């Protein structure tokens, strides 16, 4: 986990000490990166030129350095940490299976995965139902 904003490392330090450490004992456990002028934000297309800050961009990068997924939100709505963790679990399972197993919509850890095969075409309905995945 690497967090990024246009703030300096000095502001990161004071924010961590004065506020974040009151929410997380010992302060945040990951590096807080400084992105002055939104240089990295521009690279990742999450920099808002009008407000001169980065948008709420989340990128999941695999051990080969490949972006497996991303989400970008405006500044008004916060993200779901549970969803980020769910996605990482799912990508890890697929990677460990060497892409022989895929995870369907609303999959959560512990649920069945799909093994893509010719026989599966047209028969996903037998294994996956919208209501079941919401249990």
């Amino acid at each position, binding site marked *: *986990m690497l967090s990024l904003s246009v703030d300096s490392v000095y502001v990161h330090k004071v924010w961590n000490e004065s506020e974040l450490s009151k929410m997380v004992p010992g302060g945040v456990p990951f590096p*807080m990166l400084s992105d002055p002028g939104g240089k990295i934000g521009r690279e990742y297309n999450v920099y808002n030129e009008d407000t001169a800050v980065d*948008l709420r961009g989340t990128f999941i990068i695999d051990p080969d350095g490949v972006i497996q997924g991303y989400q970008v939100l405006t500044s008004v709505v916060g993200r779901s940490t549970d969803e980020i963790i769910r996605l990482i679990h799912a990508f890890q399972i697929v990677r460990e299976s060497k892409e022989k197993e895929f995870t369907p919509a609303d999959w959560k850890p512990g649920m069945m995965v799909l093994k893509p095969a010719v026989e599966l075409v047209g028969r996903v309905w037998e294994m996956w139902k919208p209501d079941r995945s919401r249990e």
Partner: protein
Amino acid sequence: MEVRTMIKAGKPAPDFSAPAYYQGRFTHVELSRYREQWVVLYFYGGDYTFV
């Protein structure tokens, strides 16, 4: 003209290095040093906001 990297799912993440604050110290982070690990990049608007 500014050349922009294409951000796409399934494509390599652009590398970068940045100054960082990490557990009481000032340090430097390079994305490429995190190979062999899963990484979440978490951009947000600013310190002292809700993220």
